[in-house]
């Protein structure tokens, strides 16, 4: 049988379309013929032919002769189109091209080596890094620059190993290499110490790159050059400098304070320009950075811009962070805006104002929040409750408690309970007084139950009276009241609470039943003995439905009682993955020696979710046997188990390095490779995080 070949003359036809079709036909011809034809077409004068040839590469096998032909196209030649197309084609071959390029580099001229660096970057392979690392020492500065840019562009696991060489490039004799190194290190998220960058900032060519990087040093000394650069910065330079300002503010309170101090000297025109950028409708990125910088610089009057941006989903985060930096300065504008905004804006304003308030304006926030409790929009009420948790005083207790007497949405009810609990913890006497006045089995008993749970007995004269009151709340027609009474009974009732809580397991409302199960798990005697174990064991053995069964298993875990072990241990192997996961999570709460064997059993469960639960639970263990078992999970067939195992092993330090490295050598899944890379990085005390652009490679 003969292989098909390209029709004679097609490669050299005068008709570009015929040559383009010839490129497509390469997919069907003998590899040797394909290699020669491909190089010819990659150098074609017509760009459409070259493009077709590059696209064909992805369909060809990485035959050695094809790779060799492509690498040879990097050699000196006047055909720039061919050389560029060869770079693109080699990049498309990925890992197979790396060795071919590496072997050919020595024989190439400076331009060829530069193109080789670019091709290596296009492969996207970690194996390209050592080769690029070697090019950082190239005598030709253009090659060095290309290598630095290639490494920065790769941004993949293992890049840390070449970071020292990149840092070495900061001392390169060629200023363009130094520039590429500063930019490349920033792109990789590598943080350099102030001293390292400070000595470069006076070089005219490097000035902007250094300014863009010094914010990340977190050094307060960076504040002055950054603020000083703002008056003359324009366009993209202004945005990059402001980004660096934001980096510096995020680094910590000392550098944030330094920025605000230096910014006091900022001229009005510059402030106006940044405010203008923060208000511009175009360029969300620049606007977001400007918003943040206004806050970081503490620019008076900037709150308005941030408040405007709160309505923009993409800028909301930046606006909130900016307001945080502005602090109490933003409270008055926030309250003003709250009173005339739509519900979502009003909610956000109240919430943020409470967070930023200090003693001078807490009362104003409190007044606004108390008014907002009557707002018809649930999100406003929730925000007001959150605000009162932060700035409320004892006079707010009653107003918050009253909300539990109405027909609030579940979310508002939960927020009310939380707010009430926070206030009760802060104003225990007032809470006790309020709870003692509640009528039994009425809607008031909802708030009273929350208060009793927080302040503890006796609230109504004696422990017995408190338990009576809470047990009566369990007869209420309102499921919310019954649900609230249960954790209170568990918290204060001791043995007296066992029967009422157990009876609530038959409640007709699912939420009440589940709360009863959890409450039994938390019920303790004064001596700390778990009192609900018998009921939970019965429930775990004969629960009417999956949900109750699983809740019972988890509650048994909370008891940490040995009587639960015979129930939980066999369930680790249950054919029902939900039950097995619940058993593992429950066992996680037990003392080390009792649980470890069962958890190790979980690693061999056929369902990957169960294995993941076991890996997570074992990750909390300090037992010496665990490491070996977790290492085995690195070879699990499910990628998400392998990734989790890598994440967990990261906490074990150096002793986990060998299994992680062994797995990295054979792992193909990119997400697992990333996790292993992250784990290995954490072990050497290094951290690289391209997004967000903050990192800490060198100790400060």
């Amino acid at each position, binding site marked *: 049988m003969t292989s098909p070949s390209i029709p004679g003359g097609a490669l050299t036809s005068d008709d570009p379309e015929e040559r383009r079709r010839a490129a497509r036909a390469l997919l069907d011809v003998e590899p040797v013929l394909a290699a020669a034809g491909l190089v010819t077409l990659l150098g074609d004068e017509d760009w459409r032919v070259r493009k077709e040839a590059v696209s064909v590469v992805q369909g060809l096998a990485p035959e050695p002769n094809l790779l060799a032909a492509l690498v040879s196209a990097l050699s000196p030649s006047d055909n720039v189109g061919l050389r560029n197309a060869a770079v693109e084609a080699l990049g498309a071959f990925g890992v197979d091209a790396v060795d071919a390029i590496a072997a050919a580099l020595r024989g190439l001229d400076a331009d060829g080596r530069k193109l080789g660096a670019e091709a290596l970057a296009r492969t996207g392979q970690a194996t390209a890094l050592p080769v690029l690392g070697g090019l950082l020492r190239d005598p030709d500065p253009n090659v060095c620059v290309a290598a630095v840019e290639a490494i920065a562009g790769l941004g993949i696991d293992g890049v840390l190993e070449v970071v020292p060489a990149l840092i070495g490039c900061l001392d390169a004799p060629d200023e363009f290499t130094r520039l590429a190194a500063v930019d490349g290190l920033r792109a990789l998220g590598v943080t350099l110490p102030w001293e390292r960058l400070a000595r470069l900032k006076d070089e005219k060519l490097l000035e902007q790159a250094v300014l863009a990087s010094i914010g990340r040093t977190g050094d307060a000394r960076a504040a002055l050059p950054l603020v000083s650069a703002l008056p003359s910065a324009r366009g993209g330079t202004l945005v990059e400098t402001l980004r660096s300002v934001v980096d510096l503010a995020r680094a910590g309170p000392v550098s944030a304070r330094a920025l605000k101090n230096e910014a006091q000297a900022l001229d009005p025109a510059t402030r106006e320009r940044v405010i203008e950028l923060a208000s511009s409708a175009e360029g969300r990125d620049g606007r977001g950075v400007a918003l943040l910088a206004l806050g970081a610089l503490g620019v008076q009057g900037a709150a308005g811009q941030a408040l405007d941006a709160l309505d923009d989903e993409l800028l909301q985060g930046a606006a909130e962070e900016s307001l945080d930096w502005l602090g109490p300065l933003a409270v008055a504008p926030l309250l003003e805006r709250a009173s005339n905004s739509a519900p979502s804006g009003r909610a956000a304003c109240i919430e943020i104002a409470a967070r930023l308030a200090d003693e001078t304006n807490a009362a104003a926030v409190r007044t606004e929040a108390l008014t907002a409790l009557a707002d018809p929009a649930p999100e406003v009420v929730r925000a007001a409750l959150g605000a009162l948790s932060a700035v409320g005083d004892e006079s707010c207790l009653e107003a918050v408690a009253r909300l539990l007497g109405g027909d609030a949405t579940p979310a508002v009810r939960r927020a009310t309970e939380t707010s009430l609990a926070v206030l009760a913890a802060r104003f225990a006497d007032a809470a006790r007084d309020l709870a003692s006045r509640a009528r039994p089995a009425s809607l008031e008993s909802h708030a009273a139950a929350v208060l009793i749970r927080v302040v503890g007995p006796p609230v109504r004269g004696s422990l017995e009276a408190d338990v009576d009151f809470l047990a009566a709340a369990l007869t209420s*027609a309102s499921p919310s009241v019954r649900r609230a009474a249960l954790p209170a009974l568990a918290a204060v009732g001791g043995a007296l609470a066992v029967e*009422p809580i157990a009876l609530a*397991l038959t*409640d007709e409302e699912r939420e009440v039943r589940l709360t009863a199960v959890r409450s039994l798990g938390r019920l303790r005697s004064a001596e700390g003995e778990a009192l609900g174990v018998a009921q939970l064991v019965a429930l775990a053995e*004969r629960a009417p439905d999956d949900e109750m069964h699983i809740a019972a298993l988890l509650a048994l875990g909370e008891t940490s009682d040995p009587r639960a072990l015979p129930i939980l241990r066999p369930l680790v192997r249950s054919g029902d993955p939900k039950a097995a996961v619940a058993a593992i999570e429950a066992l996680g709460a037990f003392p080390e020696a009792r649980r470890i064997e069962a958890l190790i059993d979980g690693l061999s469960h056929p369902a990957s979710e169960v294995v993941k639960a076991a890996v997570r639970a074992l990750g909390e263990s300090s037992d010496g046997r665990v490491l070996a078992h977790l290492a085995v999970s690195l070879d699990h067939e499910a990628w998400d188990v392998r990734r989790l195992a890598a994440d967990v092993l990261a906490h074990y330090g150096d002793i986990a390095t060998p299994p992680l490295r062994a797995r990295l050598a054979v792992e193909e899944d990119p997400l697992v490779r990333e996790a292993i890379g992250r784990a290995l990085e954490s072990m050497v005390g290094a951290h690289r995080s391209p997004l967000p652009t903050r990192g800490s490679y060198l100790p400060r």
Partner: protein
Amino acid sequence: MISSRLLPHAQLGTEEFRLLRDLFYEHAGLHYDDDAMFLFERRLVDRVEALGLEDFYGYYKYLRFDPRGPGELEEAIERLTTKETYFFRQEYQLRAFRDQLLPELAQTNATRRRLGIWSAGCATGEEAYTIAILLLESGLFRNWDLKVVGSDICRGSVAAARRGIYREAAFRTTTHEVRHHFFARVDDGCEVAPELKKICHFGQLNLMDGGRALMIPQVDVIFCRNVLIYFDMKSRRRVIDGFYERLTPGGYLLLGHSESLLNVSTAFELVHLREDLVYRKPVGAWRFNGQRT
């Protein structure tokens, strides 16, 4: 406009009836004979239509396989078992309870000053509140720890029992004095007094669900009137075994006037009261597993 009830609606065939009947039996131990076919159609046809199903077979598949099936099963059972009841029903038995059992229990429990009664299959709570009224009126249990637990398989009935508001028909045999003392008029009926609510606890319970029945505390008396008629022999035995477990030794089981433990259980003693026959768990009884309780 034509009422939708006049439009043709889904018909229940014999086969679908049997499938549904078996499902309810499997789930709740409820037994229906062939005569119940009309009851099924009448009480469930609205659900078939409300769910947009074509016929009763579709409804059966929905109950069995749809993720929302368990919830609908509760609804179906609720519709089939909802029964009309009222306060002070079967007065002769209540008199026997008040005049003979309560004095005896007041004596036997005098030391621990605690009395528990379970109204099993309490529907909307009339029986449980009636028992609570008898306890309070007797004057025998001042400052005792009194608990009347009402349970029913129907979620809606339990919620109604907790609410404790009743219409006129529920008071057909209630005296004016009792009504005046223990109920207050509200917008939509008469509401049970807080002192009764305080001692009456309600829960949703399938009597066939032994696991959940364990959550009922040990009690001195169980009322289970006109409930066993819904169960076949096998299910009855299971339910009665459960009652035996929850009764304290010497505790009483009171059944409906047409019900007995004949062919169901020999674990109980038959006790002849002046106006009624009741069952008692023997004092010092032996558990089925051979251990003395």
